[in-house]
């Protein structure tokens, strides 16, 4: 049972974006996935892409309240990568009909659907942020992404005081919201 608690701890670390935990999971699993992708028509770059995508899917899963992993991390990552890679092969028309690799897999379709939906949302957010223009973009990034406080932001952007910066931030936020939801609701 020792292995189990160990994996739990790793997942907890991953959920908090702890680079030590990420590194251990990475090191334990990457080579297997790389070998799988290389053996099935893929390149080093693609192996890296697919593996990181799977790590992000696991990370997202670990964020949910009801998170339980009913299998080993290894099995989960392998299943996600296998699914993602099959899909990619099909998209590129490189699919040859059979994929080599007989590790045990678990069902991950549902997780991947959520993951894809989220990816789509991130793209919308990215686009919305990028079409805001400066200084709105940097101001919002500073506040919401880098979690800087209003005083520091006011100083960095040259506002005379924190209240002015805050006002400006809200104006920008309203624009961002509008941009985001106009795209988001089309997507629905």
């Amino acid at each position, binding site marked *: 049972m020792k292995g189990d608690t160990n994996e739990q701890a790793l997942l907890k670390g991953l959920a908090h974006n702890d680079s030590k935990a990420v590194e251990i999971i990475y090191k334990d699993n990457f080579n297997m996935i790389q070998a799988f992708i290389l053996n099935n028509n893929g390149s080093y770059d693609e192996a890296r892409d697919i593996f990181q995508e799977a790590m992000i899917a696991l990370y997202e899963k670990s964020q949910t309240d009801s998170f339980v992993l009913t299998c080993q991390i290894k099995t989960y990552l392998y299943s996600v990568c296998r699914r993602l890679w099959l899909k990619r092969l099909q998209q590129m028309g490189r699919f040859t009909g059979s994929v080599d690799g007989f590790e045990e897999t678990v069902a991950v379709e549902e997780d991947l659907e959520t993951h894809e939906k989220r990816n789509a949302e991130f793209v919308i957010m990215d686009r919305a942020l990028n079409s805001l223009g400066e200084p709105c973009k940097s101001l919002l990034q500073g506040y919401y992404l880098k979690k800087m406080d209003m005083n520091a932001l006011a100083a960095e952007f040259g506002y005379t005081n924190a209240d002015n910066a805050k006002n400006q931030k809200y104006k920008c936020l*309203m624009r961002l919201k509008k941009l985001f939801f106009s795209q988001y609701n089309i997507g629905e």
Partner: protein
Amino acid sequence: MDDILLLDAIERYLSGEMSPEERAYFENLRNTTPEIDQMVVEHNMFLHQIADYSANIQIKQTLHEVHQNLLERGDLNEGGALSPKGKVIQFFNKYKRVTAIAASVGGVIALFISGLAMYFSTAVNDPKLEQLGKDLEVVKKNQQYQGDIINEVTSKIPINARLLSGGSGFLVDVKGYIVTNAHILKGTGAIVVNSKGKEFKSSIVLIDHVKDLAILKINDEEYEAIKSIPYTIQKNNSDLGEEIFTLGYPRNEIVYGMGYLSAKSGFNGDSLSYQIQISANPGNSGGPVFNKNGEVIGVLSTKQAQADGVAFAVKSKNIHAIIEDLKKSDTAFQRVKLPSKSSLKGIERKVQINKLEDCVYFVKAYGK
């Protein structure tokens, strides 16, 4: 203004910064005004959206760093022999016959296609296509002009040699390996000039006229290798519509241009190159084409003579191919390694260019 106050209230409410009385008042307001209730719900969702977006960026960053660290420590391997040997042999035995048949069919087809390609190839002397190497006169003029300004600096071109053509090139290995177009290198040798105007002697180590690519190696004591190259060379094909930019030397000074990827094949369906929409001038030839993340996706090579802004770039995967050829050609080149780490993603264009400048060179070819 009211909207801003309301938004401020909602944000403080959601983050739990309100005092109990204010909170009670606000909750009451929520209960009685459906519009405000709706706004709170919507804003809460939006804030979550931003938080998730931010977390996604951070985990990507962590993964990227971890990958680089493990690579540096040798815990991961992205090249050389990796897959377990036994499996390969087993595979070979299993598919020996199929492979043999496929290979012979492939061979016949390859012969046929190469014949066709020779016949139809977008040859250099096609009048509809204009190579972007600078012609002799322009370069000569520039050279004179340069000579006028800085008399004390003597050129590294051998005294009895004539300048034949010029173009751009960029570093692919810190040891001084530069990729450029084959059509620029008309003479017997070349010198390269960095963005600060300093000249270096170089030699042509590989030239591939079919791919229109060549590799130069700087052989100059004065050359100081930079620490690392900030871009990777993409192996995959890029997507239509991707935003691109280029740096090159249509003048004696480095020039920036931007555009987009407009077709996945080049002139007359040439699958070795992309069509790009960018304003390119003679001298841009051999210059790198970057995507918005600052990764090299191609080498700018030709433009269509009658159409404005239509240019073509040799796909970057061909760089990987010629580097392999180079390694095979001589053991001295075994250690040439393409950059593996891209550090320009997500940063501002000005900063990207600042870091890229040092890696883009002006190539001048000379002959006797």
